[in-house]
């Protein structure tokens, strides 16, 4: 304290932290998944990848972590099977955020999700950023980690959202090269998300589903299937979401993102600010019926309701997985 000023240094979260420390005593013991990828050099590549995906743990239903829910989530830990965290937010993070991550990792299985590594950048992956991502993943020891089939970096510009790639050989080669670079640095299995693509890049020579299949196949990766992106992209590609789903390599689906969408002119429009619509539940049911999903992740960014409302949706997703025997 200096003079008669008010001291604000311990942040409002200080009281919460003391509560969090108490909670760490009943922290969940997590298995170390991340070493699963270290045996990659000793076996035939395709077999290894198949085994790797087949052996991933069945996590259940969880949600994308949002800071306002921190304290309540810790209280309601049994209702959440895992948390997906925005990995980029914890790179070069201030101490308070690092502490938050440490507490979360003691209580939940965390799945780090990135977009700034930019595996679709033709100029290559930033080695400094990759090193930081690798360090974070090593610290968390997750069952897998995820990025996008798209790019966020080009010519010194960082895009706030991954942009699509051209559906052609050059796009596949770029992804393949960057995935190899990433996998050399990170042992944990990698899964890739289909991005929102309101436009089709000129110069495409293949079907988008075929493109995704080729990228995943060459990279030896699982699919993080974002149903909102799938629904939003389908009309641009001149088909309906179910038809697009039929063409995707569903055997590679490891994780599914589902979120509140609103319906506009008979289409699902991405909106992470609404409850999950019935049409989205139907699409989710179709995926869980057919794909060997390991987890279902609810995303909600804006217009956040009480956590209890979100946990009801998480519970419904969990029940869906039970029903189709995706987990016990």
């Amino acid at each position, binding site marked *: 304290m200096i003079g008669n*000023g008010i001291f604000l*240094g311990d942040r409002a979260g200080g009281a919460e932290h003391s509560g969090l420390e108490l909670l760490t005593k009943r922290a969940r013991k997590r298995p170390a998944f991340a070493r699963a990828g270290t045996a990659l050099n000793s076996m035939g590549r395709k077999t290894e990848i198949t085994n790797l995906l087949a052996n991933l743990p069945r996590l259940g239903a969880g949600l994308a972590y949002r800071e306002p829910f921190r304290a309540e989530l810790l209280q309601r830990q049994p209702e959440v099977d895992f948390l997906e965290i925005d990995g980029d937010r914890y790179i070069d993070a201030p101490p308070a955020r690092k502490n938050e991550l440490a507490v979360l990792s003691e209580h939940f299985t965390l799945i780090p999700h990135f977009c700034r590594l930019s595996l679709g950048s*033709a100029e290559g992956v930033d080695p400094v950023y990759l090193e930081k991502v690798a360090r974070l993943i090593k610290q968390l020891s997750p069952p897998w980690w995820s990025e996008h089939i798209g790019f966020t*970096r*080009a*010519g010194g510009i960082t*895009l706030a*959202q991954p942009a699509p790639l051209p559906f052609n050989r*050059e796009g596949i080669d770029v992804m393949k090269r960057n995935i190899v670079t990433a996998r050399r640095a990170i042992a944990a299995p990698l899964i890739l998300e289909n991005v929102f693509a309101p436009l089709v890049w000129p*110069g495409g020579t293949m079907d988008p589903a075929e493109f995704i299949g080729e990228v995943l196949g060459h990279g030896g990766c699982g699919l993080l299937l974002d149903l909102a992106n799938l629904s939003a992209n389908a009309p641009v590609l001149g088909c309906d979401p179910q038809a697009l789903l039929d063409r995707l390599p569903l055997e590679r689906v490891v994780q599914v993102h589902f979120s509140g969408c609103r319906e506009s002119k008979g289409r699902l429009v991405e909106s992470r600010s609404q409850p999950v619509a019935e049409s989205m539940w139907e699409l989710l049911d179709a995926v869980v019926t057919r794909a060997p999903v390991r987890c279902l992740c609810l995303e909600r960014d804006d217009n956040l309701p009480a956590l209890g409302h979100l946990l009801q949706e998480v519970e419904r997703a969990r029940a869906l997985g039970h029903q189709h025997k995706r987990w016990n």
Partner: protein
Amino acid sequence: MELARQQQLFARLCTDRRFREEFFAAPAQVAAREGLTVAAEGLASLPPEQLRQFARLLRTRRLGEVGLALPLTRRVLGLRFVELFKDHAIQGPPPGERPGEDALAFVEFLHRGAAGTPVEPAWAMSLARYEAAKVQAQWLGRRKLIMRRFPHALRRLVADLAGGAKPEGDYSGWTFAVWCCASSNQEPRHWLW
């Protein structure tokens, strides 16, 4: 590589409205001026409205990040915050790559009056500068000491906002703020007079 050049052009088209509109009005001329002829050939066939839609999405994502960095300013300005941010964001991509840098650039944009009309009420500008200094202290690097002076009674204003009260009056007065950090592993300590 051709795709690398196309991605660079695409990123610029998505983040710089003036450049985008110039490009779609006369792609060949703009591409020649920028030395992008081959890369531009493909992207010139993109429907402009699709690109604009993607640009709006990027701006919305940036707005979300900046709103998180400047929560009190966003709260007091409401929709005006969104309008002002749009004026800032259409001018070009976010500077740097760290989350706080876009917020700092936005506050600088407001501070130099680049939005055309001054930010009202006047104390909102002080509040934005205060939150920007906080971002600087938390995120941006190795500075051990940050000191700022504001021409409004920010201590009272922040207390009002924290208590959920609607700010009233002109909050006249002066405020001196200090953030001090002993090491990069510690949360900065903060004093406000």
